[in-house]
């Protein structure tokens, strides 16, 4: 079929579509580390993050997106983590954030191969 070029294309929706997203990886991550669900979004981890103060890395946002089934680019983002562990010291919910970073990398890394 010949298509006409109108000089624009149909914009793709920005919404997180939970009907389309596949939550399998997200469920696996939460099954291994259920404590991640206890995050209350306070942002302490991001506030002290060594990488996050120098790059756009936002640990809280990335793992929240993963929990919604948005994996695109998450592995690359998680690779910015220097594993310094400051976030784990400040987390008021006692989440093993370093462990979460490692787990996400492992799970989404597997996904890529």
């Amino acid at each position, binding site marked *: 079929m010949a298509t006409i070029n109108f000089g624009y294309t149909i914009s793709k929706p*920005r*919404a*997180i*579509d*939970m*009907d389309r997203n596949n*939550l399998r990886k997200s469920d696996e991550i*939460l099954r291994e580390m*259920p*404590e991640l*669900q*206890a995050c*209350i*979004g306070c942002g302490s981890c991001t506030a002290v993050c060594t990488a996050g103060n120098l790059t756009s890395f936002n640990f*809280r*946002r990335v793992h*929240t*997106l993963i*929990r*919604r089934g*948005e994996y695109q680019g998450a592995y690359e983002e998680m690779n910015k983590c220097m594993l310094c562990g400051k976030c784990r010291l400040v987390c008021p*919910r006692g989440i093993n954030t370093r462990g979460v970073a490692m787990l996400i990398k492992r799970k989404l890394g597997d996904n890529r191969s």
Partner: protein
Amino acid sequence: MNKRVIVIGGGAAGMQAALRLKESGVEPTIVEREAETGGKLRDWYVLFPSFTPAADVLGELRRRVAERHIEVMTSTGVKSFTSREVTLDDGRRLACDAVVLATGFTLFDASLKEEYGYGLYDNVFTSADIERMLSRGRVAKADGSRPRRIALLHCVGSRDEKVCQQHCSRVCCITGVKQAMELKKLFPEADVFNFYMDIRMFGPGYEEMYREAQQKYNIHFVRGRISEASPTIDGRVQIKAEDTLTGRPLRMSVDMLVLLVGMRANDDNAALAEGAGLRRAPSGFIAPRNLFLGNVESDAAGIFLAGTVSAPKNIGETLNEATAAADAAVEYLKRS
């Protein structure tokens, strides 16, 4: 003391106030609009944070009221009152020496939030509906099937200028957590999402319960208010919200949407307050004389406030306050 106190309202607050009055040697009369005592507790299944059956609390209160031979007038509405006289809907007048006002609250009518389609779409429920379904032992979608995905929406009819309810109803957050856990227990295979603006865990054990819901029950909490609900072709409900913690719009279809309805002031508060010389807070609830040193007293001498007539409260607070209101009434009678 040969004094008579009329307790208007026979819910948890009214019954507890009457019991305390009787204990102190004052003759209470409960005037209840409905055909039986119990108020809103009658429709509740179990109470947060301990999952205590509401019927246990209510049954015990009723048992004590009966055992102590407290006079209860049911199916009796109150038109107006002062500290010395209560006028009933049928025109009868009851003389008294003081009044405890324990008329409680009204559940917010969820259909006023038209965008959620309550009463129009089959699988939109209120928290009160869920309690009734739990009591009956049968929670299901409108077609009788098991839900695979459930969303609970906090703050329906609370913190919302659009429906003239600017106050926080306080107990809906913990109700949302409690019902999410109950639903997850019933439907372990279902995904349960709570959509909230703020999570306000004000009571003892509430924060712990919230954490348990997250970590142990794997309930998802999304910070964002659902902006609208629409029906889908297969009888589900599509909802839209912002996942504010990721900064992106979010949408999904759910099998059940549960609206956690707030507590609002009774419609007759205005007329009753005017007749008795009471003051109302901007929220429409009856204002206590002083928020610190007179929080069960009203602006009128001889009229005392117990329970949610003055603000949203949980059952524990309500019962404590009823005791305090009764004690204040007894003190007042001793002085007068």
